[in-house]
């Protein structure tokens, strides 16, 4: 699963038009499997992805979708890992369409071909998002840990358009590809993308341990943003809609993660765990499983989903802060990863006593002193990755 803040994109786009009644799981993200043929160093899947429980069956997924629809879910994302590895994907798509979902396939494109895409189209799939690592074969394939990835992705992107799907191209942006953002945008224009997400990695899962190698410098970001704006002006409404998401590491206030905890997003992991956000699995909170509880109980009644709703859980400086309704204290996962306590202020906030951790990371991105090599996401590297995480 790409780690690019595409969820915050969803909430951004939703919010653009306002008027979403609060607290319905509008966005249901089905992580169908953690398996994946690629090895992206910015992957948001848990480091120990091999040791999660057994994958949900087709019927269990269909039951989750039906319950979600009852609760008001309208957008359904098929994600992973690589969702194409699920042999029952066509069935899931067809049934979801019949329930009235708008369905999004979020894929690396590996394992797709024109025939399967057509089958999905007939089954009622609404949209395909293809992720790329870079704008040229050499870098793309190095970042994805695969020799064939780039050619396959190009072919699939062309096929997505040929079959009349709307297409989002997603590029996870980091220090190795950010200086080629002009070439990336050129490629998306050539491929006739409808939306392009140029989103810097969020540092969860594998991306957390690779952060020092991934985080661009402030100067790199400023340049990339200027380039993106120049293309926006040139395109003037024609061509792809460019969405550039900067890492919150260079902000002084955090983002209100997921539009509020348990407010709009519901993620189901391959083994049935229900999460308010796709990176929440790492938190020391017991999250419910769809095998044991109905989605309604999970959403409204479970401890995991009520944990960070409202403001009662906050500590200082958030508790008495007059900005808490704006950012809700930021990202719980980031607070946990960096400070060890998920109820602390997100260290991105300059009022946080841990803000120096963010400043140190920025400095490291600047100087590249003492930076450890990238660890690619694969089963062989799990031990090494866990050791680095400490």
């Amino acid at each position: 699963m790409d780690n690019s803040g595409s969820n915050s994109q969803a909430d951004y786009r939703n919010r653009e038009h306002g008027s979403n009644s609060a607290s319905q799981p509008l966005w249901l993200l089905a992580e169908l499997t953690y398996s994946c043929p690629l090895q992206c160093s910015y992957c948001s899947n848990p480091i120990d992805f091999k040791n999660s429980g057994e994958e949900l069956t087709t019927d269990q997924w269909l039951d989750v979708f039906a319950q979600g629809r009852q609760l008001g879910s309208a957008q359904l994302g098929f994600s992973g890992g690589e969702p194409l590895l699920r042999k029952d994907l066509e069935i899931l798509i067809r049934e979801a369409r019949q329930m009235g979902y708008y369905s999004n396939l979020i894929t690396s494109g590996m394992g797709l071909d024109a025939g399967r895409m057509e089958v999905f189209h007939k089954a009622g799939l609404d949209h395909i998002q293809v992720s790329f690592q870079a704008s040229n074969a050499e870098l793309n394939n190095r970042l994805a840990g695969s020799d064939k990835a780039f050619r396959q992705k190009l072919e699939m992107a062309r096929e997505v358009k040929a079959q009349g799907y709307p297409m989002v191209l997603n590029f996870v942006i980091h220090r190795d590809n950010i200086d080629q953002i002009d070439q990336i945008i050129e490629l998306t224009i050539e491929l006739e993308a409808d939306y392009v997400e140029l989103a810097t990695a969020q540092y969860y899962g594998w991306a957390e341990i690779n952060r020092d190698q991934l985080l661009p410098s402030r100067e790199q970001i400023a340049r990339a943003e200027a380039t993106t704006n120049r293309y926006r002006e040139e395109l003037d409404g024609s061509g792809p809609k460019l969405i550039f998401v900067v890492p919150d590491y260079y902000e002084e206030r955090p983002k209100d993660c997921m539009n509020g905890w348990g407010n709009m997003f519901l993620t189901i992991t391959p083994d049935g765990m229900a999460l308010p956000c796709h990176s929440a699995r790492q938190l020391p909170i017991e999250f419910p499983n769809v095998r044991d509880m109905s989605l309604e109980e999970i959403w409204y009644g479970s401890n995991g989903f009520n944990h960070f709703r409202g403001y009662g859980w906050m500590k200082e400086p958030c508790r008495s802060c007059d900005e808490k309704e704006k950012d809700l204290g930021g990202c719980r996962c980031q607070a946990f990863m960096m400070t060890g306590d998920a109820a602390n202020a997100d260290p991105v906030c300059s009022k946080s006593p841990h803000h120096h951790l963010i400043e140190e990371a920025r400095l490291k991105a600047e100087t590249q002193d003492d930076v450890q090599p990238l660890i690619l996401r694969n089963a062989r590297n799990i031990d090494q990755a866990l050791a680095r995480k400490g």
Partner: protein
Amino acid sequence: MINADSVPAINRHFRLQWEPAQDAHVLLYPEGMVKLNGSAAEVLQLCDGEADVATIIAKLQQKFPEAEGIDADVMAFLEDAHGQQWIQFPG
């Protein structure tokens, strides 16, 4: 410019549907949703790629005989909807 014989259709990248949980019509598109107010939904439901603007206005006038200034409202809404890319004018 939109005029009386323009023929609007919902942009094929959007889907118009009734959402019980929202108690409203919505437009769904990649990873997003627009909740529509009543009058927007009335107009968009008539944008079927066959009826021209004059026909749409006539139908609405028939449905809401008391309403005044429907034509101006519909025109303004269609301009806006076109700007948001919710509708297209095929052919």
